[in-house]
């Protein structure tokens, strides 16, 4: 486990969050208990294709929106 010193501050769905350094977006989703196939990730206002969550790194200050489908009219 990286120490807190090596952690990064990111924003996920509007809330600040501390995550370990060197994390991929796929790793972030795992940390959050989410299945990549059931959510859509917007990374710094750009939609991240599902096929790229494994190869895309998380950086200090990144802003994520993680969305899914809910009931609506």
């Amino acid at each position: 486990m990286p120490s807190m010193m090596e952690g990064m501050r990111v924003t996920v769905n509007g809330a600040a969050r501390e995550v370990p350094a060197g994390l991929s977006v796929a790793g972030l989703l795992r940390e959050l208990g989410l299945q990549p196939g059931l959510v859509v990730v917007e990374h710094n206002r750009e939609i991240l294709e599902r096929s790229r969550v494994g190869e895309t790194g998380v950086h200090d200050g990144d802003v994520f929106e993680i969305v899914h489908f809910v009931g609506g009219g």
Partner: protein
Amino acid sequence: MNLQDERLEIAGRSFRSRLIVGTGKYRDNPTMVRAIEASGAEMVTVAVRRVDLDRTKEEGVLFHLDPARIFLLPNTAGCYTAEDAVRYARLGRAAGLNDWVKLEVIGDQRTLLPDVIATLEAAKVLVAEGFRVLAYTNEDVVTALRLEDAGCAAVMPLASPIGSGLGLVNPYFVREIKTRLSCPVIVDAGVGTASDACLTMEQGVDGILMNTAIAEARQPERMAHAMRLAVEAGRHAFLSGRMPRREVAVPSSPSAGMLD
């Protein structure tokens, strides 16, 4: 006599049911699933929202609806600018189900009436990006024509404000929109009960999209069934061509052959 109706065709996809239903406001998911089943709808709308990270057990609607059985139409509900609507539409498409979107840009919080200028602006952007745009709009004929010109796959005038249940307030303009447009016209929002749905279909429109009328009924499943029948009844009444309205009575039994 063949009493079958032709299928509803939108953007190269065809549907047997002319009823499209929303998935919002149900008291629980099993109720929603049973209501959709009873409605006979083959297309349902869904919204794009943040995953709730604090309640990790919360499930998205995909846990309850099988996209292989039912066509999911992502909406841009809750958006007040063209930019936001485009953003939500792109997120919906990135879910990987299809490239359709129910475009909705709201212009007023109290009435939830559409911002038609922003809707048109967003429609142009989305059509250029290859989306199949089904655009929610008011019952204004000129806006409906502009949305069709912009390349929308369907134009969806309201019956009355979203969630109001006031029924079809402007049958004349809805009929005019249907007459003037070549793309499918789906009435979206405002239907409150089965007679509203029937009356709406009697105007000749191609279908109806509704949510609250079913979800907020005391028995959603039964109301969904009623709506299914009402949409079919209204459709067949339209196709059959109603009798003229007369200001005077005309007897149904022969006036000849009466006794002295």
